[in-house]
C-alpha cells in the first residue's frame, strides 16, 4: 500500500489509485485462475472469441461458397474412395477454371488435362511455366488453390459449403447475438430496476406489473410469436430476444436496490450531502453490479441457445448465412440417411461454447460474491 507524506503530490495520488486498481484486478485474476472450472470456461471462451475475430484469417474457405460437387462430403477420417475421387475432381476443375482465366488454352488441351490426376496436372503446369506460358507465381497460386480445395477437415454440408469455415464464422453470429442481447437487456433492466427499486411508487408498480405480464409467457414461445409477426432475420431476432430478457435484470436489480437501500451507508451518504442520482450510481450500483455480471454471463449461454432454437425452427438467421442454429436446421434431414456431420459439428460448437459460458458464470458467482462477505 502506498505510503504518502502529509503533503501529497498529484503523481503520488495517481500512483496510489492505480496501484489499488491493479491490485484489485490482479487478485480477481488470481482467484479466477485458482477456480478450475471457471478458468477452463474462460480459456475456451477466449479461444472462441479469437476464432470469431480472426475468422477470415483462419478459415480455409468462404463459408458461403457452394461446391455442389462436394455435397455431403464426410469429415477427413470418414472418407471412402468415392469421396476422395470427388475431392480431386473438384480440385482439378477449379484449378483448370482458374487457369483458363489466366492464359489461353485450347479445348483439346483442356480435355487432356482434365483426365490427368492432380499430380500429373501440376507437373504439366510446371512444363507450361518452363515454356514461359505461365508465370511462376501463378503456378504457385494454382498449386495452392488445388491444395486448398482439398482441405475440408469436417466435411461439407448438402450445398457443398465447408463445415469448418461455417462453424467458425458461426461463432461470430452467436457471440454477437449473445453480447448484444445481453448487453442491451442488462442495460435496460439495470436502469429501470434502479429507478423502480429506489423510488418505488407508481413507476415501480407499473413496470413490475408489466413484467408479470411478460413472464406469463414461456420465453421461446414468446420469441417465436414476435418473429412470426415481424418476420425473420438478424435484427428482428435480437429485438425478439431482448423483449423479454430485460425482465430478469430488472427484477434482480430492483430486489437488490430494495435491500441495499435499507443499509446504513446509504443514510450516511445522504447525510454527507449526496444527491439521489449520485447515491444510485456511485453508492448502490457498485455493490450490486457483481450479481448483474454473473446473471449476464449465464444469460449469454441461454441467448445462444435461443438463437440456435429460433434458427432451427426456420425463423432467425436465413441460410446461407452461417449460424449454428440454421446449420442444424439445414442438416436435420440428413441424419436419417446416416449423414451425421452436418448437424453434429454445429451442435458441438453450441454445446462447448454454452457450457464454457456457464462454467465461467458460475465461477464468477463464487468468486465475486463471497469475497464481499468477508468480515
Amino acid at each position, binding site marked *: 500500500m502506498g505510503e504518502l507524506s*502529509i503533503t*501529497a503530490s498529484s503523481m503520488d495520488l495517481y500512483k496510489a489509485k492505480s496501484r489499488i486498481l491493479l491490485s484489485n484486478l490482479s487478485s480477481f485474476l488470481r482467484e479466477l485462475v485458482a477456480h478450475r472450472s471457471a478458468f477452463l470456461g474462460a480459456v475456451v471462451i477466449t479461444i472462441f472469441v479469437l476464432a470469431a475475430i480472426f475468422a477470415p484469417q483462419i478459415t480455409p474457405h468462404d463459408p458461403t461458397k457452394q461446391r455442389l460437387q462436394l455435397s455431403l462430403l464426410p469429415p477427413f477420417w470418414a472418407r471412402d474412395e468415392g469421396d476422395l475421387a470427388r475431392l480431386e475432381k473438384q480440385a482439378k476443375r477449379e484449378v483448370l477454371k482458374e487457369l483458363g482465366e489466366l492464359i489461353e488454352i485450347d479445348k483439346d488441351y483442356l480435355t487432356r488435362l482434365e483426365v490427368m490426376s492432380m499430380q500429373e496436372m501440376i507437373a504439366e503446369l510446371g512444363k507450361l511455366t518452363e515454356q514461359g506460358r505461365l508465370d511462376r507465381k501463378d503456378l504457385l497460386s494454382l498449386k495452392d488453390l488445388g491444395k486448398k480445395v482439398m482441405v475440408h477437415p469436417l466435411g461439407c454440408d448438402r450445398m457443398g459449403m465447408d463445415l469448418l469455415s461455417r462453424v467458425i464464422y458461426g461463432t461470430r453470429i452467436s457471440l454477437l447475438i449473445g453480447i448484444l442481447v445481453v448487453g442491451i437487456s442488462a442495460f435496460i433492466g439495470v436502469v429501470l430496476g434502479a429507478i423502480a427499486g429506489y423510488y418505488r411508487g407508481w413507476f415501480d408498480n407499473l413496470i413490475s406489473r408489466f413484467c408479470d405480464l411478460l413472464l406469463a409467457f414461456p420465453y421461446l414461445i414468446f420469441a417465436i410469436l414476435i418473429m412470426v409477426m415481424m418476420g425473420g432475420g438478424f435484427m428482428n431476432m435480437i429485438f425478439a430476444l431482448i423483449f423479454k430478457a430485460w425482465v430478469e435484470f430488472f427484477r434482480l436489480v430492483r430486489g437488490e436496490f430494495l435491500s441495499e437501500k435499507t443499509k*446504513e*451507508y446509504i443514510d*450516511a451518504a445522504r447525510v454527507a*450531502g449526496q444527491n439521489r442520482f449520485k447515491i444510485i450510481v456511485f453508492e448502490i450500483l*457498485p*455493490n450490486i453490479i457483481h450479481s448483474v455480471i454473473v446473471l449476464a454471463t449465464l444469460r449469454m449461454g441461454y441467448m445462444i441457445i435461443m438463437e440456435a432454437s429460433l434458427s432451427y425452427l426456420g425463423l432467425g438467421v436465413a441460410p446461407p448465412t452461417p449460424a449454428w442454429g440454421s446449420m442444424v436446421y439445414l442438416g436435420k434431414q440428413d441424419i436419417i440417411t446416416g449423414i451425421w456431420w452436418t448437424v453434429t459439428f454445429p451442435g458441438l460448437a453450441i454445446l462447448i461454447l454454452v457450457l464454457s459460458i456457464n462454467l465461467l458464470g458460475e465461477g464468477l458467482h463464487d468468486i465475486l460474491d463471497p469475497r464481499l462477505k468477508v468480515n
Partner: protein
Amino acid sequence: MSSEVKAKTEKQAKLPLVKIEGIKKHFIMSPSLLARAFGNRDIILKAVDGVSLEIKKDETLGLVGESGCGKTTLGRVILKLYEPTEGKIFFKGEAINQLTGDALMQFRHKAQIIFQNPYASLNPRKTVRNIISVPLKNRGLMNPIEREEEVLALLKAVGLSERHINSYPHQFSGGQRQRISIARALAMRPKFIVADESVSSLDVSIQAQIINLLEKLQEEYRLTYLFITHDLSVIFYVSDRVAVMYLGKIVEIAETMELFENPLHPYTRALLSAIPTVASQEKKRIILKGTVPTPIDSTKGCGFHTRCFMKKGKICETDEPVLASTGGGHCVCCHLFQSYV
C-alpha cells in the same frame, strides 16, 4: 462587522444550537389491497409522539431509552433523514423544516451522524479515501490533492494510520471502522453530531477508546453531541444532561448527576435500578412487570401506566401528563409531580 450582523451573531450565541418543538413522527403501515378488503385499516406507528427539546452549544445531551422508544427515529428526524409528521426544528435559530437544495447542503455541513453498526455504515465497495472524499467533495473541495491532504489529516485526528487510506472496510476491525465513520462525520466540519448508539456494538475496551476519542474531538473542534444509547453507564459518563424516552415521549430530563441521584419518574427509577453494577453495595432492584407496549397500541393517558408501580390513581389512565419543570432544569412528565391549579 456591521451592527446588523453583530446583533445577529450575538442573538445566535444565546440561542440553543438545536431546538425542536412538538416533533411527531408517525409511520403509516398500509395493509395490502386484499387485507383492506377484509377490513384491515392503516396501522399508525407513533415512533415519536410529541417531543420538544433544546440542545445547547458545546454540550452533550444524552438520550436514553429502551428499544422501541423512538430515540433513533428522533435522531434521524433532527438530521432530516426523515421528514417529521408534525413539529418544527430550529438550527442556530433558523427553521430548517423547509430547506432544500443549497440551503439543505449548508445544514448538512453543520449537522452529522455516526451510526451504530460499524459494518453496515461504510460502503463495502469503496476505499477509505473514497468514503471520506464524498463529504469533502460536497463541501466544495474539488482539488484532489487538497482532498487527499484533508483525508490524511482526518485519519490522523481519529487515530488511524495514513496507510489505511487505500484499504477497504472489510479489512478493518469494528473499532477501526467506527473511527472511519467519525472521520467521515468530521469531514463536513460540523458543529453538531448525533452519535446513534455509536459504541453499543463494540467490545468494552474498544468502547472506551471510542468514547475517549469522541471526548477529545469535542474539545478540539468544539462540537455539540446528541448521544443516543441504551447503556446507562455510558450515558452517565459522556452526558452533561440526560433525557429519558419512553414510547415516543420524553418522560424526564435533567442534568446528569441530578438525574442519577434524584430520579423522579417511575420509569427512570426502574431503569436506573436495573443496571447491573460492579459496585459492591447491595441494591434494591425494581423489577418492572410486563413488557413494553408497542408504539402501535394507542393507550389513553400516560403511556407507562400499564407497568407503573407508583401510579397516582385513575388520572394516570385517562389524562396524558405533560413535561413540566420541577426546578433547576429538571423536568418530569408524570402526574405525581405536576401541580394542578
